[in-house]
């Protein structure tokens, strides 16, 4: 089943075309890497998929809902986490989970159950009463991700989730992403670490508002005769 | 240094919001205070109940009506129905002459006039009553020398320098002061806080520029702009509001310049204690604007304040500058009458400059 379906998505700002006829789809339970240089139009497209911005034209369906008219339904079915958006530094871990669970309208018992479950999975159950600001960055990123999936969304959008994180935590983070995907939550992720692109089932590469490549990492490397995704990326960008 | 000042001008002229604040606000404020918010009353409807209708009451009535402050209402209520006309709101004041007015004046050397004003608008009522009493006093002095009229209203002392009771004269010095204070202090504090917020201060600090240079580079453009502002306000008050400049214009401008420098150094001081543009803005608004308006004698006379507030008002720079502006513009007094106030403002300027330079952080901690 397709969880995201985009056909001929166009987004213009005045005369500037940020997204130029994007067409792609994301399968349910897939880890989808959304790559591209700065200014290629990734953020614009991601905002549209999250229901924060309306396309100029084209068909965009997320979790079965239409981004033109059903953004409220979309927002209930998605989770979002970015490097810039993080949790409240002056609340405890537990309080953060309670707050964000409440935002999605989960009943109190359900929030408690999910919080215990998610913290247990991170091995941070013993830290639930610590103030978030006192925790290491890597932990905060993992907690932010857990909060993004507290309401069991159909799809979670991750905008550069591992920027600046140490190499071990970065890998642990991806293991959590894998677990999440195995439970059927679709993961839509952007990153500047090209090795992370290899962890995705499929990746698309954007340049100048267009999707210029979309395939599995293995097929892309074969097609561009490259040893890794970084080489693919450079070959595309330098054209 | 020169480059710094040029850069500062770019910031100001490229930001439409700050341009509006800098030049739009003064014009709007002056005109607002000058016209719309003026407490001056024109053509207030007045009802007159004349129980004697003799030559004296007719003379007083025509003097009242020709003053321009009052027009005669066609409502003439009966004695017991005064409240009713007020309730309809068509009459602002009722004047009642007692019967046999001229005769009593002649015989008993006193006669009674009752003045009843609609005090649901206390400011207007106050003004109308004082206008009325002033006009009656006037009449008394002209025609009835040596006689005393038992009028139960007091004349106000401010009228001495403002015989026409023009409220513009009261407000313009206050408006000039508040605008110069707010604009200069707020704009400088925000512009320094912006450098902190944008991270550009980090680069400025890691350059050979000394704190005094950074501060001077920030201040000089605003001195120029604020001075231009002062000129605009003065021109508007002179030509549009008919405000006189009885004293020396050069002295007025020099005093304004001094006050601007003081306000700027206060702005810099505010920015050294606030980290964000928002905090600088809040501090300027609440720490400067409210006390400036409330405690400077601009709206509420200082003599009427409780003693602690009177003492506190001494540290409000605008309090002194308002005195200076009034003295020069309205009273036409010379420097020897305002040297004390000038000295106080100069002292405050030095105080804030020294404090700012000492508080200016040469590092990020």
């Amino acid at each position, binding site marked *: 089943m397709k969880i995201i379906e985009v056909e001929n998505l166009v987004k213009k700002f005045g005369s500037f075309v940020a997204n130029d006829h994007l067409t792609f789809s994301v399968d349910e339970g897939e880890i989808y890497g959304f790559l591209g240089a700065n200014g290629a139009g990734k953020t614009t497209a991601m905002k549209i998929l999250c229901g924060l911005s309306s396309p100029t034209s084209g068909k965009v369906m997320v979790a079965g809902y239409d981004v033109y008219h059903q953004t409220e339904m979309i927002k209930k079915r998605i989770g979002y986490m970015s490097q810039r958006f993080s949790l409240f530094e002056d609340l405890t871990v537990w309080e953060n989970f309670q707050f964000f669970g409440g935002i999605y309208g989960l009943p109190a018992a359900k929030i408690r159950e999910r919080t215990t479950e998610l913290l247990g999975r991170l091995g941070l159950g013993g830290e639930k009463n610590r103030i978030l600001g006192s925790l290491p960055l890597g932990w905060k990123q993992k907690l932010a991700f857990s909060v993004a999936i507290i309401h069991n969304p159909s799809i979670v959008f991750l905008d550069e989730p591992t*920027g600046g994180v140490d190499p*071990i935590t970065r890998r642990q983070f991806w293991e959590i992403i894998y677990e999440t995907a195995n439970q059927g939550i679709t993961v839509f992720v952007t990153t500047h670490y090209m090795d992370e692109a290899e962890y995705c089932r499929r990746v698309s590469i954007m340049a100048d508002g267009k999707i210029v490549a979309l395939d599995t990492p*293995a097929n892309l490397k074969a097609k561009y005769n490259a040893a890794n995704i970084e080489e693919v990326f450079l070959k595309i960008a330098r054209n | 240094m020169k480059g710094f000042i040029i850069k500062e001008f770019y910031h100001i002229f490229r930001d439409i919001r700050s341009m509006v604040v800098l030049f739009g606000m003064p014009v709007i404020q002056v005109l607002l205070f000058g016209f719309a918010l003026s407490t001056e009353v024109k053509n207030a409807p007045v009802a007159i109940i004349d129980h004697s209708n003799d030559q004296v009451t007719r003379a007083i009535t025509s003097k009242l009506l020709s003053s321009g402050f009052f027009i005669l209402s066609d409502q003439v209520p009966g004695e017991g129905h005064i409240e009713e006309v007020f309730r309809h709101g068509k009459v602002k004041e009722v004047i009642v002459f007692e019967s046999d007015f001229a005769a009593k004046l002649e015989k008993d050397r006193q006669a009674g006039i009752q003045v009843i004003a609609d005090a649901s608008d206390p400011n207007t009522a106050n003004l109308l009553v004082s206008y009325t009493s002033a006009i009656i006093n006037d009449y008394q002095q002209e025609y009835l020398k040596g006689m005393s009229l038992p009028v139960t209203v007091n004349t106000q002392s401010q009228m001495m320098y403002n015989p026409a009771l023009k409220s513009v004269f009261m407000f313009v010095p206050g408006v000039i002061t508040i605008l110069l204070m707010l604009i200069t202090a707020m704009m400088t504090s925000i512009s320094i806080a912006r450098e902190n917020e944008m991270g550009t201060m980090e680069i*400025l*600090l890691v*350059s050979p520029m000394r704190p005094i240079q950074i501060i001077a580079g920030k201040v000089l453009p605003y001195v120029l702009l604020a001075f231009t502002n002062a000129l605009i306000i003065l021109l508007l008050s002179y030509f549009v509001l008919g405000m006189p400049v009885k004293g020396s214009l050069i002295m007025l401008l020099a005093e304004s310049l001094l006050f601007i420098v003081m306000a700027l150094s206060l702005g810099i001081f505010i920015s050294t204690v606030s980290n964000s543009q928002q905090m600088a803005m809040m501090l300027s608004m609440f720490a400067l604007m409210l006390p400036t308006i409330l405690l400077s004698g601009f709206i509420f006379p200082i003599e009427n304040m409780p003693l602690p507030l009177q003492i506190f008002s001494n540290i409000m720079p605008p309090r002194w500058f308002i005195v200076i502006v009034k003295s020069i513009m309205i009273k036409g007094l010379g420097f020897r009458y305002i040297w004390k106030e000038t000295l106080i403002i100069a002292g405050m300027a030095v105080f804030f400059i020294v404090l700012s330079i000492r508080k200016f952080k040469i590092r990020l901690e």
Partner: protein
Amino acid sequence: MSSAISIHAANITKRYGDKTALDDVSFDISKGELFGFIGPDGAGKTTLFRIITSLLKPGSGAMTVEGFDTVKDYIKLRKILGYMPGRFSLYQDLTVEENLRFFAGIFKTTPEANYDLVKDIYSQIEPFKDRKAGKLSGGMKQKLALSCALIHKPEVLVLDEPTTGVDAVSRIEFWEMLSRLRLSGITIVVSTPYMDEASRCDRVALIQSGKIMSIDTPEAIRNNYGQDLWAIKTDDTYRLLGDLRQFKYTRTAFPFGEHIHLSLISKSVKPAEISAYLEAAGHINIHISKIEPSIEDCFMEMMSTESSTREK
């Protein structure tokens, strides 16, 4: 390394409240060196760079840059320093050219006087010199910021995470510019969270949790890894990672793109044994090759040993 010292740090410690940002950090950077501080966010890189640039005082310890004490001689030091802070710190409402002129001006020079030093970089953005800095793309902002930091011909150039948040192409271009700049003899100190950028530096310091774990040339750091390292690939990377973690000879197993990098508890284990284990676990298309460790492998190795020694 016999050349003269440019930056000398002795036992620098810096605390914020009860948090230790830098813990007894010492190093020497030679004149003309391209030196990298490599480590994740929160490792203490920005604090260290602010101490180098005299923006912060060290809590204890001493630092000199070109012989100037960063606390006492900060006025002289600031004349010879070029600094590019972590986030984009130019005037967004000024044009490209106005920014350059302004930053030249505060060092009492002009863009024309030192044009030769920035020509290589600035010429790339010169066609946009009348554009507001806020309207430039990420890579162009970076080039402008570097031009502004260089315009007064500093002796020491300090760049705090210049490539963070920049796409892969712009990152490579940026390092190419630094390599060319290095030829002019200027001392360049860079920090980055991207481990793969270490190979661009003459020497690097690996920094984590306020401590320098290692200082050396990238080659020497890789040579000191001390373990045999295997890159393993099968058709199911995710399951492969789990299975390798269960393997009785496994010391560490970390994913690297489509491969798993595996180090073993004993050097006597043969690749055939790994292969046999994976076949038994049902993996197909098994590729096993011995590889040279990358800086990232070394970093993770040091992180693990650091944290295990700390626990003891």
